[in-house]
């Protein structure tokens, strides 16, 4: 940003519509050439970079996953600090409404190809917080989920199995979560707005 722009921001306040791309996202169609497509899928499957956003209790099992004991970096899995660099979003367990808002924002900031892993019971049907007033019950109403992993908590081995499943799906070209989100954007947005009461986000931004 130019100095002048900064001054504008300071004077007039922040206007998201000026600084964020508010365009509707587009469906990413796979490459037509079979061999190139296969190569792309292979490459994508072997560099799954996780967004380091611990959204729930499941995040306690993520450090062991990255660290010496399980050391998933040998499988091409690595934590990244910012959504712009990450390709996999692990929703580690329950999501409170307040976090969901940040999660949506982070998810939309992630670049394609991007995938979502749902961890534990809470993402499927509310888990043990099914009757809580502040946690969502099923994640697939708000974000497209590619793979679910059972457990509360799942052991890191189960997480690795989840990544293997995700890799398999990517290699077969079936991990279409991001496209699903784009295709059903209105439905997802309507669901999100229904529970996020103070909606102050742009429709879509990245």
């Amino acid at each position, binding site marked *: 940003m130019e100095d002048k722009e900064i001054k504008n921001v300071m004077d007039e306040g922040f206007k998201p519509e000026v600084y964020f791309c508010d365009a509707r996202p587009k469906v990413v169609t796979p490459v037509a050439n079979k061999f190139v497509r296969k190569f792309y899928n292979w490459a994508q499957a072997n560099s799954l970079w996780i967004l380091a956003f611990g959204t729930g209790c499941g995040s306690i099992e993520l450090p062991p996953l990255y660290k010496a004991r399980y050391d998933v970096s040998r499988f091409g899995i690595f934590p990244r600090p910012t959504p712009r660099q990450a390709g996999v979003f692990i929703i580690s367990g329950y999501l409170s409404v307040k976090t969901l808002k940040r999660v949506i924002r982070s998810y939309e900031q992630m670049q394609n190809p991007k995938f979502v892993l749902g961890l534990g*019971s809470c993402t*499927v049907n509310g888990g043990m917080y*099914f009757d809580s007033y502040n946690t969502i019950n099923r994640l697939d109403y708000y974000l497209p989920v590619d793979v*679910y*992993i*059972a*457990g*509360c908590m799942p052991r890191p081995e189960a997480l*690795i199995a989840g990544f293997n499943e995700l890799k398999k799906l990517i290699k077969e070209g*079936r991990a279409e979560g991001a496209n699903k989100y784009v295709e059903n954007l209105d439905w997802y947005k309507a669901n999100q707005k229904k529970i996020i009461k103070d909606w102050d986000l742009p429709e879509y931004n990245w």
Partner: protein
Amino acid sequence: MSLKDVLSPFSAWKRTLEKPFTIKKPITEREGEDRYRGFHVNDIEKCIGCGTCEEICQNEAIDMVESYPITANKGDSGLRPQIDYGRCCWCALCVDVCPTGSLGMSNDYIWVTPNPDEWVFKPGIDEKEWKDDDKGYRRTEEAWLLDPEQEPMPVLEPEVRKNTFKEMAKGYQVTMALEEASRCLECGICIEACPTHMDIPEYIRAIRENRLEDGLKILYDTNPFSESCGRVCTARCQDVCVLGHNGEPIAIRWLKRYITDNTYEKRNEILGIGKPLPESDKKIVIIGGGPSGLTAAFYLRNYGYQITIYEKHDKLGGMLRYGIPEYRLPKEVLDREIKTILDTGVEVKYKVEVGKDVSLKELQETYDAVFISVGAQKGTEMPIEGMDTLGVLIGVDFLDRIAEGERPDLGEKVIVVGGGNTAMDVCRSSVRLGAKEVQVLYRRTEQEMPANDEEIEEAKEEGVKFEFLTSPVKISRKGDKLQVECIRMKLGEPDSSGRRRPVAIEGSNYVIEADTCVMAIGQKVDSEMAQQANIKTTRWGTFDIDPTTLQTNVKNVFAGGDCGFGPDDAIRAIADGKKAAYFINKFLTKKGEPLID
């Protein structure tokens, strides 16, 4: 900052030479520990579908669902748990509470799928790779959350009760009843086992919540003989009680007794008995004032019919009065219970024997409906030589005499033949009459004895000796002693009832000397009156009835209780009485239509 501080971090380099912590093949290398709580497994043979796991699950993750190939059966609801892994938190409370111990958890923990609707499965039924896993979390005895021990009933000491006909069981105190009632899991498996399908969990809850008046009302909804049943019922419900699989069942009978013991003084008031009932001009006659007949009278009265009971004896109660000794069911209890029933406005004709004093045909024609519940009052005699010897008695007649207040002198040694509850009543009454030695002869082993285990146990405490696999073949008299010649038996192939048939061992005869010998091997029905009204009977002498509606071949005549289905316990008779009331009402209100669809 010293040089040491700069250099010492480099000492970490020495770790490069160590074996790394890393697990080479994460998924296959390390399976869950022996106690790991993974996915559920269920032994579907052991599981009885009681739903306790569903109740304790704080996540509402468990549903009880019908599951092929399991179907409902006695003591098994036919339901099996279905677990939603979108809810489960792997706490294993369901495993720790499982009354049968069927539920467990495998140490398998990996399950990934892209489809969120897959996460529901029935352990033990759906094919999963961990279905037959042996490892994993299983409930141990110390982790079981339920209490396997029944609250003991305070009873008179064997030495005291041997000499008196006073009631033996003293009844629960308040704390004991609360303790016992709180053990109930409210699964309701027992309701099916009870012939009259009492709402057992409901009245147990009433006890727990200290609403005894409500409890009494619940009892009288299904059983007007609750007070007697609370003492002498064979408690089939306790046989299927879910807690009985790994411990002692709930003392349902004693809890029922606890309600009635604490409310009998105000019973009519609580139940609103004596208040006007609906009145109908239809008249019904009931032959035989036993449990079955009186139950039918009670409920038919509630329908509003005018009831007349014909009773052979001078008192009502039937086998409850004449078949059950006073130490189990005091006569005053029976009297006050029958009075409650009569207070609804029932007319009774005592000392009238239908078939002799008045003809059944006549009753059938003058009344709108007839319910025959004469019971099975005749004792069976053994087809052996010497049955008419002096000193050989028939069990039911013997009990009848005691009930009438006689206290016959039995001599020093008494032999009782038979293994049913009547035999137990006889031998224990003999002890109370002063016999020094009482011996029970039974032709099978203790496992096959039809008498309640409790009764056998108590008889043993009172000093009754048991002689199994033996049967008398001949009785003669020598001087003032009876010579009972017996033969040893062995168990052969199972017969139609599923019990192994006893076979005599040739040449194993031996002789026992005794003063009295009581035959308590069964009863039969006296159905001579049936011919008067052309009612069909079966070859066992019982009335030939439709097993569902209790109707005989003569449309307005119904029969039930022991005389309908053969000798059985009191609760069965009560159930029949209730059923008869329902179908007689249906017969009278819907003239001509079939009683069941």
